[in-house]
Structure formats: C-alpha cells, structure tokens
C-alpha cells in the first residue's frame, strides 16, 4: 500500500470485478429458475422462513414508523392549522419512500443475513459439495429458491408495512384530534394508482432482487471457514443496505416515484 493511487485503482478494479461476478451469478440463478423441476416445495419453505417469520418485525416497525410520522406530521402541520393534511403526509411518505426502503433494510437484517449465513455454513461444512456428489446442482436446489422467495416476499412485506404504517398514523392522528374522515380522504385523494402504488411496487421488487442476489451470492462465495462465513454475513448487510439506498435514489430520479 505504498502507492495510494494504486490502492484506489485496485479498489475500483475489485468493485468492477465483483459487479461482473454478481451479474454472472444472477444469470445463473435466472437460468436455474427456468430449469425443471420447479422446486416448488423448497420455494414455499423459503417463503415461510423469509416472509412469514419477518411478519412480526415488519408489522411492529410499520406501526411504529407510521405513529412517529403521524406525531411529527401533526406537530408540524398544527403550526399552519393544516392537520387535515396528515393523511396525505403519512400516506405519501410511506408509499413512495419509507415503505419499500425500510422493509428492504429490515428484511436485509432479518432474512438476508440469515440466508448468507446458512449458505455460507453449507459451504464451510461441504454440504454443497455433498449435493454435487449426488449430482444435485446446489445453484438449483439451494440458491434459486432462496433468491426467488426473496423477490416474491419483498413487495408483499412492503405492502403490509405501508398498511400497518397508515394504521399507526391513523391511531396517533385521531388520538391527537385529527378528524378520522379527513385523514382517510386525504389518503384517497392524494395517492394515485399509476404513480404512487405502481412505483412503490417497482421499488420493492427491485430491492427484493438486490437483497436476494447479494445475500445468496455472498453466502455462495464465502470462504469455507467460520471467519469467512461471518465476514460474508457482514458484507451482505453492508452491501445490500448501501445498494438499496443508492438504487432508491436512482429509481426515484429516473421514474419519479
């Protein structure tokens, strides 16, 4: 590391290489998804682990975020005597931004890290090699169902998060004296299907792809040691979180959602 310029160059090259490897990995996962058998049971198991077991954290956080939005929004809007707009504030911020992003970050911590650790442990204990010995492609049996399940559950979790958040904002707002009817009317009149709901869905889907691919890729390529597995898990959380926030900006900038 005597030459800092060389260090920067090496970093940049490493980043490009990793992105390329991730893209090749994604193509392999996509190819595996097209091959028979469908591995439907494996897929459903993963939906259970990634989706159903994330439900509690998603719903609790959704209500909490909606409640704090309701409180902050109420205090700010009250200065202008515009507390009737609380539904608009809570609904739009949840649907367009907070719902998909926070769901993806929570799911990364809750399910993405577990996915990496599980696959990494399988690498370390040579279970994937065992599958290969039985001529079962681990890409097809282990990786593909996990990645697809992540892509599948993300929009569902995001929608549930948003609904819980709207309910949380409703509870706080109505407690502080916002008219329930104007809260709901504010939601209905400001949220449009084509711009807001579809955009939110696209965001959640993109984040599902990112988290699913990064988590499985990091697990699959983790070093076969306990240190390697822990490093891979950390990398998943860091990379997925950064990727979510960076992609969030570009999705918003390019498609205006």
């Amino acid at each position, binding site marked *: 590391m005597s030459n800092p310029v060389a260090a920067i160059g090496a970093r940049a090259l490493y980043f490009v290489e990793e992105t390329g490897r991730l893209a090749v990995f994604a193509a392999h996962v996509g190819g595996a998804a097209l091959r028979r058998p469908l591995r439907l*049971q494996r897929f459903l198991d993963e939906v*259970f682990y990634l*989706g159903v077991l994330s439900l509690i954290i998603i719903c609790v956080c959704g209500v909490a975020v909606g409640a704090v939005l309701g409180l902050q929004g109420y205090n700010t809007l009250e200065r202008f005597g515009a507390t009737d707009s609380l539904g608009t504030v809570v609904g739009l911020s949840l649907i367009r931004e907070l719902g998909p992003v926070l769901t993806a970050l929570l799911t990364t911590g809750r399910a993405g890290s577990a996915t990496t650790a599980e696959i990494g442990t399988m690498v370390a204990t040579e279970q994937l090699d065992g599958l290969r010995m039985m001529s079962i492609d681990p890409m097809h049996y282990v990786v593909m169902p996990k990645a697809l399940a992540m892509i599948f559950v993300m929009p*569902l979790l995001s929608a549930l998060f948003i609904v819980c958040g709207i309910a949380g904002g409703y509870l706080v707002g109505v407690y502080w004296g916002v008219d329930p009817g104007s809260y709901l009317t504010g939601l209905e009149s400001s949220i449009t299907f084509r711009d807001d709901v579809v955009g939110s869905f696209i965001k959640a889907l993109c984040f599902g792809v990112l988290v699913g691919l990064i988590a499985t890729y990091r697990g699959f390529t983790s070093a076969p040691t306990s240190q390697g597995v822990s490093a891979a898990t950390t990398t998943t959380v860091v990379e997925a979180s950064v990727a979510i926030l960076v992609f969030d900006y570009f999705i918003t900038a390019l498609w205006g959602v």
Partner: protein
Amino acid sequence: MKRNQTRDVAVGLFVLAGFAAIAYLSLQLGGLKIPADETISVFADFDEIGGLRPRAPVVISGVQVGQVDRIDLSDDYRARVFLALDAALELPVDTSASIVTSGVLGDRYVSMQLGGDDRYLEDGDEIEFVESAVILERLIGKLIHDANLDSEE
C-alpha cells in the same frame, strides 16, 4: 416426505394478507377501478385555471361526479380541461363549469351548475359556459391599484 401442514397454511395466510394489502393500496387508496367506471369525456376552455391539476374533483352541488382527466393548451392558447364524468348523469348542454377553491388557499376543483336545456351533453362535447379561476394575488393587486387611484383624486 410428509409436509409440515401448519407451515403451508402460514405461507398461504401470509400470501393472502400480502395480496390483500396490495389490493387495499391499489383499489381503496389508489383509486384503481376494476372494471373501470363508465365515463364520458367533455372539455371546457378556460382563460385561467389557477392551480387546477389532473385528478382534481368535479362536483355538482358539492357532490363529486367525476374528475379532471388532463389539461392541455388549446389552439387559441387557452387552457383546455378534459373532464371525465359519470356516464349515468344527464347534464343539459348549457351546463356551466367554474374553477373554485376549497377555502381561501385550498385545492382547486371544478364546480358545475346545471342548465335548463333539454338536450344532454355527450362524449366529446364542449362545455361552452365557463368561469375561470380567481387569482387572489391579482385581485389584491387590482384592489391596491384602485385604492391608489382613489387617493390621488
């Protein structure tokens, strides 16, 4: 291999709840209609629309009967506002449309006053009688101008 029945039920419930949430967001909050409501499209040319935007409500006596579909500039540089109205309504052709504001600084919407003609508006028709939006700043500016003239006399 025996499947874990409880787990499959949990997955099923989760998927149903997720789709119910998406349906609530799309249909109830997003205003998506399946099948789409029968509407007719009429247009009206205004000199000034103020802050009127697409999806603003169209009301008769305060009851919403449609919404602003889109807003273009007509050939003679007036604002052409396309309204999507409930097809079941029978509106006389001399019905008038005005752009009003809810409250002093609230959102703009279109209010319609029924006419007395026995012919009814049909899809693609123009509403001839219009009343443009009142711009508060211009009104105040005019008031101050008049007051200045008075004091000079």
